[in-house]
């Protein structure tokens, strides 16, 4: 009902000087899938240790930290305590699953300013296996983070919010149920080439359409997994990253946009604030969607991928359904999307953003095994948080993109 918000921020003018000044020097996952006996901290710390080792650094080299948790509002403190680090840069920004992508730009400024030399961005969740798991967390958050104008109508969140967006997209643009299913089928086809992916059984469009209904038009196969998992990356200045163990993956652009919290307050259910975060991230990078060799986007639900491909500029608004149809984003399609299998088939421990980043790093480094893309110079990584509430976009590239 409200007009779509506009931003006058000139990302090209303000942030272009930061383009490529910081690189991802290390990246790792740990315990993706099921990790019985683990807890959030254990998964985070083991992923962090592996990422720091991947970068050729030691934990004592880490003097910057960015992390957040679904359950603990002061999560940076126990992480600092557990790791035994003494960071001069701390970012606990929590905007849902996009957080770890949104952590990039502030960390870039801190590294460039000399506030710190190595930033660890990390996450872990045992929501599938822990005693206090996803169900308990959702129940607790009803009290800690109430939405008094939505909860009385018993929307099963987050899925109902995405179902409402999908229904509206179908109504406005003629997007079909089968096109939504294409997103899940493509994700599964990628997952079948990823030994780390949690669900690797064959999946057809008919399987998705015939799966258990959750919130129309979405079935359970339109919904992301509920898994455990930890993920971490290490950021350093680019000049330092070049002297470290692994090929640097440069951060060319990053921007974050939030227009609302509740789906009922979203101005237009078919245009997300990814339209803003994407435009500003691409402006910082001096690149456009057509320059991307891959897209790693937060596919919490099948409609997400369609919305973000449109909002990031891979196709016009309303044409996302046709874009993904006929295997458009499956292996061999017109665009490589979510090459690890995404949140739909690979891993989704509550917040997925860090895993989208890590998959882009693996592809850009050329270490993605059977699913490795032939052309792997640029990637757009896009995170979503809440119920289409927060959006953060990053543009990554190899040395030849500098």
């Amino acid at each position: 009902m409200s007009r779509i918000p506009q931003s006058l921020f000139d990302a090209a003018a303000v942030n272009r000087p930061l383009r490529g000044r910081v690189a991802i020097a290390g990246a790792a996952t740990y315990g993706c899938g099921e990790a019985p006996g683990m807890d959030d901290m254990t998964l985070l710390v083991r992923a962090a240790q592996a990422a720091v080792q991947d970068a050729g650094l030691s934990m004592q080299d880490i003097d910057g930290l960015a992390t957040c948790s679904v359950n603990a509002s002061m999560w940076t403190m126990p992480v600092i305590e557990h790791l035994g680090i003494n960071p001069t840069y701390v970012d606990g920004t929590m905007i849902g699953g996009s957080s770890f992508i949104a952590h990039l730009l502030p960390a870039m400024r801190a590294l460039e300013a000399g506030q710190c030399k190595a930033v660890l961005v990390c996450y872990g969740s045992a929501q599938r296996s822990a005693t206090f798991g996803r169900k308990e967390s959702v129940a607790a958050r009803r009290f800690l983070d109430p939405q008094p104008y939505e909860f009385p109508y018993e929307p099963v969140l987050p899925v109902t919010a995405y179902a409402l967006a999908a229904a509206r997209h179908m109504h406005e643009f003629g997007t079909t149920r089968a096109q939504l299913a294409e997103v899940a089928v493509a994700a599964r086809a990628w997952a079948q080439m990823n030994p780390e992916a949690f669900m690797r059984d064959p999946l057809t469009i008919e399987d998705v359409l015939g799966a258990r209904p959750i919130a129309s038009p979405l079935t359970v196969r339109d919904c992301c997994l509920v898994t455990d998992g930890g993920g971490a990356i290490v950021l350093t200045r680019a000049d330092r990253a070049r002297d470290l163990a692994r090929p640097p993956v440069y951060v060319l652009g990053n921007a974050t946009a939030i227009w609302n919290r509740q789906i009922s307050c979203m101005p237009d259910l078919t245009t997300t604030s990814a339209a803003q975060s994407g435009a500003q991230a691409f402006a910082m990078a001096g690149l456009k969607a057509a320059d991307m060799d891959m897209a790693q986007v937060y596919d919490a639900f099948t409609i997400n991928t369609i919305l973000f491909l449109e909002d990031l500029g891979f196709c016009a608004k309303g044409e996302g359904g046709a874009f993904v149809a006929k295997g458009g984003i499956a292996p061999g399609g017109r665009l490589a999307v979510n090459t690890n299998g995404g949140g739909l088939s690979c891993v989704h421990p509550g917040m997925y953003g860090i895993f989208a980043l890590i998959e882009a790093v693996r592809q850009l480094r050329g270490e993605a095994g059977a699913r490795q893309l032939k052309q792997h110079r640029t990637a757009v990584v896009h995170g979503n948080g809440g119920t289409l509430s927060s959006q953060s976009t990053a543009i990554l590239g190899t040395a030849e993109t500098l």
Partner: protein
Amino acid sequence: MHLSAQTHYQAELDAGRFCIQHCPQCQHHVFTPRELCPHCGAGGLRWVRPSGLGTVYSTSTIARKADAGGSYNVALIDLHEGVRMMSRVEGLAPEDVRIGQRVQAHVAQKDGRGLVLFTPVQAQGGAA
């Protein structure tokens, strides 16, 4: 005592009255209830009674087992006054609620608290 906008909204609902806010400065209606106008930043939002007429902006049928009450509707309704709210359309099967359908608000009571629900507006004779 100054009531929060949420407390005032719910108290009115509990008394059977559906109120939304209106900004005296920029003349926009406002929902969800707030302290400040999200369009112009003004305070002093006034409570007004909307017409209750609205249009279904989007709708979903939430699957629930029959012994738990069965499937139900969750919808987003665009009110005639230019604001949107989450609600439920009743008086027809949840899967029969349609985007674009014209609906009318009423205040129901659930567990002793007022709740805005909608029912379809019967089509009048002639073209809509």
